């Protein structure tokens, strides 16, 4: 039945998606499937349309042409259906997008308050648990977002994204602004949740170590097209000079960081 078609359908199916901002073309006829349980890393230079592609997947941005199927449902304009589908995904914004007027715990509990009818006490407990799961100090729960550091905001945002244990997680640069150890523990958390809940994850990232650690598939965007699509290992071994160029640039950056760190005895 409906459930069965959903089981077999890819979580996201993009067909011939093209997006423009004014006269500037961001995506030129992109087709792409994200299968259930995959961790997909979107790579590409700045301005290559990674975030916009995620926004298209999350139904936050309507492409000028092409179709988006989510969980096997073709998206038409019915608002209620859209909302129901959106409740099944979690989108973590690059700068957190925490509600400034709520405490961290209220922020994390907010989706539970709105989408479930659980008792307030239980919601508070679950919110607190999620805050601890993402590695924040338990006491952070009582702070306002403006009192958090960049890294703490990031974790709090992830906790809120995970509030409803969404089947489909979209992460916009989850590791940026975190120190390497925190980025690694964040990756580990995502990995554990992925294993335990069978999550599907799409993430935009610039951190190649994180890609190699976590992703089973990497997609490299270049000038509005998919330049390469495969396992991180395959992409790194690619013969395409443009792919090699991208990775070498990025590798050099992380190598130089590690040599500097080694030189400083870190």
């Amino acid at each position, binding site marked *: 039945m409906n459930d069965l078609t959903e089981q077999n359908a890819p979580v996201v199916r993009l067909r011939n998606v093209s997006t423009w901002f004014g006269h500037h073309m961001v995506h030129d006829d992109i087709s792409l499937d994200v299968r259930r349980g995959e961790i997909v890393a979107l790579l590409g230079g700045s301005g290559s349309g990674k975030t916009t592609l995620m926004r298209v997947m999350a139904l936050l941005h309507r492409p000028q042409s092409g179709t988006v199927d989510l969980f096997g449902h073709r998206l038409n304009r019915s608002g209620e259906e859209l909302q129901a589908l959106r409740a099944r995904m979690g989108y973590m914004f690059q700068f957190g997008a925490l509600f400034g007027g709520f405490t961290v715990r209220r922020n994390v509990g907010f989706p539970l308050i709105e989408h479930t009818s659980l008792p307030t006490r239980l919601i508070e407990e679950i919110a607190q*648990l999620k805050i601890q799961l993402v590695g924040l100090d338990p006491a952070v729960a009582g702070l306002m977002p403006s009192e958090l550091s960049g890294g703490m905001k990031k974790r709090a945002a992830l906790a809120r994204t995970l509030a409803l244990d969404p089947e489909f997680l979209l992460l916009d640069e989850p590791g940026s602004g975190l120190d390497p150890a925190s980025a690694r523990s964040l990756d580990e958390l995502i990995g554990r*949740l992925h294993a335990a*809940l069978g999550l599907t994850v799409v993430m935009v990232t610039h951190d190649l170590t994180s890609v190699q650690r976590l992703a089973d598939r990497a997609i490299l965007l270049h000038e509005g097209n998919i330049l390469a699509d495969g396992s991180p290992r395959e992409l790194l071994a690619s013969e395409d000079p443009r792919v090699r160029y991208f990775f070498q640039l990025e590798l050099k950056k992380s190598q130089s960081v590690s040599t500097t760190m080694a030189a400083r005895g870190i």
Partner: protein
Amino acid sequence: MSETASATRPRIRLEGNTVYLGGTWTASTLEKAYAEAQRQLPSEGAITVDFSGVGKIDTSGAWFIDRALRALHQAGREVNFVNMGAGARSLLSMVSEQPDPRDIKLARPHFTFLQRTGHAAVRVGDNALDYLAFLGETVFHWGQVFTKRRHWRLPMFFTHLEQTGVNAVPIIGLLSMLIGVVIAYQGLYLLQNYGATALVAKLAGLTILRELGPLIAAIVVAGRTSSAFTAEIGAMRVSEEIDAIVAMGLSPAEMLVLPRIFGLLIALPLLTVLADASGLLGAGLTAHFVGGIAPEAFADELAHGVSVTTLLTGLAKAPVFAVVIASLGCFHGFRAESNAESVGRRTTRSVVQSIFFVIVIDAIFSVAYSMLHL
């Protein structure tokens, strides 16, 4: 998928010392298990939890199960999990590793009515001092940049002149003309009892030039402009643009406050002249069409009955209003915290306070004028 697993509600069945769990244990279904889970578990012996019937489970469900078992763990009782899927196992171990979220008490400051009243009173004083400090700082900067033409920021000044002045022309023109119509209408109605309808020009002239023209212009500007100033500067705070200006070694007072204050200082007196003129126009038209007074007679009466001093006493208020409105708007923008709620609260306060002080200052002017016999 088995029949039990696809059931949507979570199920709990107790047999001896074994708890059989079944159904779906997710945030959206848990609510139905809440009552059932309150039942007493056997008070002695090892507990076995059988997961064979469990279909979907998420972190919330795992916590729900874990919270019931924590007390047993603490009491040293043995708890065994059987027939558990790999997903449920890793979820439950992930959750049970965490310190108990029920133990984290967030200290919420609680204030009594008396304390809150005290705080509010102190805050009023603090705000007043803060505002004076802000004004002082602005005047200080004005003194600094006055001699250096490079720091005058003329393009910004003209932008604000346009936004606060030119763009307000239609609304202020229309409103004050309507006020003129109302004044003349009421005046005619009153004066006709005494056969003195000709005096309507003097009545309307005095009220509009001295009080209503400056007041209408100032109140509309307070609503339009002080809110805009607060929201603009507040949004710049949120996006750290103010910090960027400071970090570049520039002065936010010079770049943001002075052009706004000077822009309004020019715009508001001009708008007041406009309000005066269109108010008189409205009154004149009403006198003509309703009272049958010829425009020439109206103008004549106006010229005899209303002196230039009256016009000037009204106009003299406009610069004071302008400084109060612009500086309050900027002040609240700078005092906004970096979240949307605070910007909204500050915007409200800047509008309310601007209008409040416009009226207070107008009253002070009236008293002062009467003491000076103007």
